[in-house]
């Protein structure tokens, strides 16, 4: 039995010694050792699948206008980078604008709803209607009604993305510990103080959960809306490039555009996960590792 001194000098009595210890894990390239399998395993699977794909395409002599191999797709990505990067930029711009709008409107409405039961009663059902109506079905309508194409795409992506934020934030704002609410009442805290110091922080894990879902949905919404708008010939994002390549039988380019959409989705997921971890890792159960 060795004596360990983890507690600062003030520790005395018995209860301090039972405090949980959070040891720093060894890091390789700035990433904790136990995280490496999470990163390496999927990469390994990816390399295997791509290798197999390339091999099947070559072995069976499948022409690239039917089913291109990964190498041809990579070549196309480099060759057509100018066109594709422009399209990527347009799609990402709409995705992020929609996500920002979803966050602002979702959080603002959630706060309003928790302040007034009447507002929630009268408006929440309409938020549900927006959510359950398939965006493909209303996209043509929105594209006709909105003068500007970009604006109509933005509206479509926003409709898809905003509900998870709204519903999760409402849940989070209402999930503050009841005794803490009593405590705030005891100290005469006003609404704003209770919101600022209690409800908003308490809702953060829920909001971030909603953000993770909405990030992906904003991209999906933007792409779906582009498809609808693209079939009318009036868009220039990645989905439009996919449609266009399909018509022109430029199948490798179609795959390259698809790859960019997937990578964007993964990047958005990683970014929201990283943000969530940054904001929660010191205090929330979901972000803490259990020692078994």
């Amino acid at each position, binding site marked *: 039995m060795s004596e360990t001194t983890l507690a600062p000098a003030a520790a005395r009595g018995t209860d301090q010694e039972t405090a949980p210890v959070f040891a720093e894990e060894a890091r390789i390239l700035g990433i904790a050792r136990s995280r490496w399998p999470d990163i390496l395993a999927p990469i390994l699977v990816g390399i295997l699948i791509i290798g197999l794909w390339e091999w099947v395409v070559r072995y069976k002599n499948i022409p690239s206008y039917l089913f291109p191999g990964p190498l041809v797709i990579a070549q196309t990505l480099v060759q057509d980078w100018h066109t594709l990067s422009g399209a990527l930029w347009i799609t990402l711009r709409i995705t992020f604008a929609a996500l920002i709008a979803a966050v602002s409107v979702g959080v603002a409405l959630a706060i309003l709803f928790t302040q007034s039961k009447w507002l929630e009663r009268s408006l929440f059902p309409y938020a549900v209607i927006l959510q359950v109506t398939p965006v493909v079905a209303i996209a043509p309508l929105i594209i006709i009604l909105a003068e500007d194409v970009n604006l109509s795409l933005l509206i479509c992506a926003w409709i898809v993305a905003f509900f998870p934020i709204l519903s999760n934030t409402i849940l989070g704002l209402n999930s503050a510990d009841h005794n803490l609410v*009593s405590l705030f009442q005891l100290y005469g805290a006003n609404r704003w103080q209770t919101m600022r110091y209690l409800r908003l922080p308490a809702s953060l894990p829920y909001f971030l959960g909603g953000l993770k879902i909405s990030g992906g949905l904003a991209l999906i919404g933007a792409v779906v809306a582009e498809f609808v708008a693209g079939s009318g010939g009036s868009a220039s994002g990645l989905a439009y490039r996919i449609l266009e390549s399909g018509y022109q039988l430029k199948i490798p380019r179609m795959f390259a555009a698809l790859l960019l959409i997937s990578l964007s989705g993964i990047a958005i997921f990683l970014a929201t996960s990283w943000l969530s971890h940054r904001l929660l890792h010191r205090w929330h159960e979901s972000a803490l590792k259990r020692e078994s």
Partner: protein
Amino acid sequence: MALAQGTGVDTGRAARKPLVSVRGLSKKFSNGTLALRDVDLDLHASEFVSLLGPSGCGKSTLLRLISDLSQPSAGSIDWPGAASADARGRPEHSLGFVFQEPTLLPWAQTLDNVTLPLRLKKMNRTEADQRAAAMLELVGLKGFEKSYPRELSGGMKMRVSIARALVTEPKVLLMDEPFAALDEITRHKLNDDLLMLWQRNRFTAVFVTHSVFESVYLSERIVVMAARPGRVMSELIVDAPFPRDNLFRTSPEYAHLCRLGSEALKKAIDA
């Protein structure tokens, strides 16, 4: 209906004006449960009172009523001994509340948890931090200012909770079974520290518990309550001198008082 059953009533205290005076207090919940019936209780400045009773006797309800978190169905709570009062007739900054759970903000560091009541009163940050740091030192948590609640043990979290309740220097500290979830060793330590704080700051302590031993060790006066409906059954005066320590805990006098307490509690449970 309070029945003094003690080993010597302190007449000096009875003559003083009480700090809080509870008269004919009843509380009926919306589901029809009568949580409290016709409770009379005086709290004097700087005394240590325990509310002892089985679960469901309305001890916690009584605390919530005194702290104005809940409104009585009948009866009154007055603060005749208060020097200054706010709009609701309650002396300002006068209450501290410790819940059964530590009830800390999980996203805030220890120091920020303790400064919370001061920040809500719009005290400036530097002064609030200084007072909170002093309070943390007093409860034995110097050096843990930057720790998050997650990183503290159960006993330490409760110390933070007590520090937060005392940082406003309240006249009355209400505690709702604060140590019930802790192990016995930690509980004894916290009992001793609580008495130390009480003797130092001279607040009025109201301590809800269902442990006879804890109530006898801590209090000057034990109010025994019965359940269904919640009511005051009897009172027990514990006139052992302070400071109390392990010597008191093992003395025949303590054992005797615990027996009296247990009998009173048994009567309340059987009633």
